[in-house]
């Protein structure tokens, strides 16, 4: 019967198919067994590699202190809220709820909402930094109802004096793409692992100031911890196999005096009445015995705290494009013509060339030379002046002729002996050397033959001569120290930093020549006709009983006054034309006004501090730079930081590390 045959044919096929299916299922089971046993790939290891992740623990950076232990930069614990957009159901409701818990306003919600929406959904976006502990605790209680939100504790570099130490201390930032490329270029497994480390979001590196200069000391040693993570890299469990604790970076004690630095910055921040803006410039105070820099101020300042977590583009552009260049470390990188503050160098050089003590010139207000007139700043002239009076009244004509007497080589040699034309190792990036021109340099620069006209200009510190405010301070300190080759220092204590050997006398400087220019500087500040009398009246006296410097009051008026010796300077930014000559400063655009300079040292009877101030486009040195220097010197002499016991790093760190 056909039905039967049909059926058995189907049954055969059915059984074949069933057997095939069964065999295939068996093969699948064998495949599982194969993957688990014979497959050479170590899946268990691969699974652990997925599952466990080494989390880098960025070390806390070393603390930076001023000379008396005031904290200038520290690493503080910070609580923050992050949100991962991808894990949030309703972003707006979640952020609104967080705002409610943290008591923040609608504007904050709107701003954060916009920013969070722009962020990648799987990257945690930081909504709020710097939570107070009660806020952090309150938020933690509500976290279970806020999916995708995390409250984390981290560390953050903190600059408590905000704008005051922006330049010398600098700031840290996330490593840039270029930083990472650089360590990769160094090559090898080392470079690679260093690059991985730099990509860690918690890692910051010094990008300016001491933070950059002492990066390797301050940074500390990274630790790591093994954690269990998911595919998005989120930590599921902190329980791992191993960990190594990070080691905090070394502490650093600076030579700076926070109090004096603050006063210096405040003086620059006082509004310039003619422009209604902050002043721009630099101020330096240096210990003439140890070379320690007590003040290293550049103005205007900026807040380094804004850089730590990435500065806003708008804000950065504002800082970067400002005419007053707040990001520029003017004290060590600014190049200026020293103007009349250079005249001491010319005077010493002329003396070395054999200029007799009674040598004098008659100043009619100009000096005809080489077919043109070189003007003196005083149009009516100074009359008959010798070197003392020429320094006191800052007579240009005298120094035009003194320069011709000395010759450019001799002036350049003296300038170099007093610290110009060289750079200093302050552990700071970008300390510049400036330019001390002489005929050799001129020829090498491809400018041709040096001419006597250049020597004339050299005599009043103009022309190609370029100096930094730091170098002006070094010059003042060496003059104050009676010709000792004082070297500036910025770091008191850090790994590998040792106290310097006592400074030697500058070779080839005759003390008699030095005495003449120092006396001239005393005249500038203290004698009739001096250009800086008003800027030098400190109102301080020295008590004869204990030698302390105190303010002059009716009771102390009979004590001997504390005096300084200084020199004003006015450096042309562009050649004076007949159009601008004699015009009042307020009628000239700011950027074309002269730089005002002032250098000084004191106390006169036993110099301990030297000070240099440059006010960019501040007009005559006596009118702006002088008063700023006066305020700084007054506070310096009154508080006398060089004679107070400095902080010791070991003791400071012991205090910090004492358990609570």
């Amino acid at each position, binding site marked *: 019967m056909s039905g039967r045959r*049909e059926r058995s044919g*189907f049954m055969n096929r059915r059984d074949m198919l069933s057997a095939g299916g069964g065999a295939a*299922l068996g093969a699948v089971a064998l495949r599982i067994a194969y993957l688990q046993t014979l497959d050479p790939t170590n*899946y268990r290891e691969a699974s652990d590699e997925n599952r466990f992740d080494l989390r880098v623990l960025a070390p806390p950076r070393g603390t930076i202190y001023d000379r008396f232990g005031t904290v200038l930069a520290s690493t503080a614990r910070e609580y923050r809220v992050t949100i991962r957009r991808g894990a949030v159901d309703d972003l707006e409701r979640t952020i609104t709820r967080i705002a409610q818990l943290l008591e923040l306003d609608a504007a904050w919600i709107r701003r954060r909402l916009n920013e969070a929406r722009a962020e990648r959904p799987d990257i945690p976006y930081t909504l709020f930094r710097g939570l107070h502990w009660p806020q952090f605790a309150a938020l933690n209680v509500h976290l279970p109802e806020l999916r995708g939100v995390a409250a984390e504790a981290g560390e953050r570099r903190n600059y408590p004096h905000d704008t005051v130490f922006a330049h010398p201390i600098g700031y840290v930032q996330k490593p840039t793409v270029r930083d990472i490329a650089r360590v990769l270029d160094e090559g090898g497994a080392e470079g690679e692992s260093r690059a991985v480390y730099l990509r860690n979001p918690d890692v910051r590196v010094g990008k300016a100031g001491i933070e950059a200069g002492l990066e390797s000391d301050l940074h500390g040693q990274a630790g790591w911890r093994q954690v269990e993570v998911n595919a998005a890299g989120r930590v599921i469990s902190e329980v791992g196999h191993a960990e190594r604790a990070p080691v905090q970076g070394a502490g650093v004690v600076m030579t700076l005096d926070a109090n004096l630095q603050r006063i210096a910055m405040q003086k620059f921040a006082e509004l310039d009445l003619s422009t209604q803006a902050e002043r721009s410039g630099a101020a330096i105070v240096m210990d003439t015995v140890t070379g320690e820099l007590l003040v290293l101020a550049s103005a205007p300042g900026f807040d380094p705290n804004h850089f730590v977590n990435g500065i806003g583009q708008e804000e950065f552009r504002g800082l970067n494009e400002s005419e007053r260049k707040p990001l520029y470390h003017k004290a060590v990188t600014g190049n200026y013509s020293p103007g009349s503050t250079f005249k001491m160098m010319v005077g010493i050089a002329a003396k070395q060339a054999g200029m007799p003590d009674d040598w004098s010139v008659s100043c009619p207000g100009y000096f005809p030379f080489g077919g043109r007139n070189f003007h003196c700043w005083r149009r009516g002239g100074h009359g008959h002046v010798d070197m003392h009076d020429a320094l006191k009244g800052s007579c240009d004509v005298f120094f035009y002729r003194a320069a011709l007497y000395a010759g450019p080589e001799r002036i350049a040699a003296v300038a170099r002996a007093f610290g110009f034309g060289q750079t200093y190792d302050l552990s700071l990036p970008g300390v510049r050397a400036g330019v001390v021109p002489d005929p050799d340099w001129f020829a090498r620069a491809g400018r041709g033959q040096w001419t006597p006209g250049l020597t004339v200009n050299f005599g009043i510190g103009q022309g190609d001569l370029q100096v930094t405010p730091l170098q002006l301070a070094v010059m003042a300190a060496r003059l104050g120290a009676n010709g000792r080759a004082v070297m500036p220092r910025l770091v008191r204590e850090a790994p590998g930093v040792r106290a310097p050997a006592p400074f030697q006398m500058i070779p080839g400087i005759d003390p008699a020549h030095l005495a003449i220019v120092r006396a001239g500087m005393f005249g500038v500040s203290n004698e009739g006709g001096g250009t800086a009398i008003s800027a030098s009246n400190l109102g301080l006296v020295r008590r004869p009983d204990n030698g302390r410097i105190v303010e002059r009051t009716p009771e102390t008026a009979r004590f001997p006054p504390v005096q300084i010796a200084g020199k004003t300077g006015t450096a042309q930014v562009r050649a004076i034309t007949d159009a601008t000559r004699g015009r009042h400063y307020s009628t000239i655009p700011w950027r074309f006004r002269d730089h005002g300079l002032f250098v000084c040292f004191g106390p006169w009877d036993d110099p301990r501090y030297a000070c240099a101030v440059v006010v960019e486009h501040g007009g005559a040195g006596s009118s702006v730079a002088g008063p700023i220097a006066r305020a700084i010197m007054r506070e310096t002499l009154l508080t006398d930081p060089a004679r107070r016991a400095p902080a010791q790093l070991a003791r400071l760190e012991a205090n910090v590390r004492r358990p609570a």
Partner: protein
Amino acid sequence: MSPLLDVTRRFFERASALNWSIITILCALALIGVLMHFSVAGGAWSGMPLVHGLRFAGLLALAVIAAVYITARAWRDFAYWLYGGALALLVAVEFIGETRMGATRWLSVGPVSVQPSELMKIAIVLALARYYHHLDPRQTTSIWFAFPALALIAAPVALIMHQPDLGTAMLIALAGFAVMFLAGLRWRYIVPAMALAAVGAVGAYYGVLHDYQRARINVFLGLESDPLGEGYHVLQSKIAIGAAGLTGQGWMRGSQSQGDFLPEKHTDFIFTMIVEEFGFIGGVIVLALFGVLMWRTMEVAGRPRSQFGQLAAAGVAATLACYVLINTGMVMGLVPVVGIPLPLISYGGTAMVTMMAGFAIVLAIDYHPD
């Protein structure tokens, strides 16, 4: 006795005579699904595990009712209509279909969106069973009568390839060939046809496939290594299975699954999660359950005297086998990655509707053998 009570009583009498061994295995597989979705959800009943369980319960109830009231003969009479309707819908998809993630597979009618290709998985089995039902043995084995069957398969396969949905097209083709094989196609045609199919596959690889499909196949063949792209799914899946061991990491403790390294773990890659959490033993138990289900269904296929009943039941069993083998082969790198879920366990409504419709027919064939 009221008529309603009477109807209810008679329904339960008849329902109790259904093939409860098949129903039990279906329930066991769905329960495994619920347990796995509970693990995927990180220990929450609400959401996926609950929806999965309720969906299965509802579909099982419908299947039982359908098995009691819709006879195999009714399915046979309805077969061409079903196939024709499914084909018409596939054509409609070409023109008014909804495109999601680069593929046009859906038809939306108000709030309901359906994939006609899913409907076709059952329709192709019924249509072919119906086709062979009317042929006598001599015709069945003749080459000339194989061509209409091939045409029945080719039309939907071509439309579905064009959506594009390689996995479903493959599954329908395999199910169709299985029915042709069961119907008695001669070996002397099968062997050349397979050779022809191999040539066709190579041709399709170069001519018809999309770049992403070609990339998946390249990765599968080892021609390309792309551990973060197309190869990522399979690599992570192999890691999870390879590291699981005999008994696995434990329920809700699979590090690959719980840590989200394993993608699509609630749908296409759920078998990986089963092995990771319950080990080799867990995987073999699930495979065995599918094996027993297939065997029981094939037993049903041996019962009816009608060609339609035999072929339809065996066709459903073959479809089930294709699903399981493609899916488990895929997660272990034996088959290229195509979007085929594990029946009754993977999350998702369409595949479950298809499978339960298939078993509604199997139960009906078992209950009304002629």
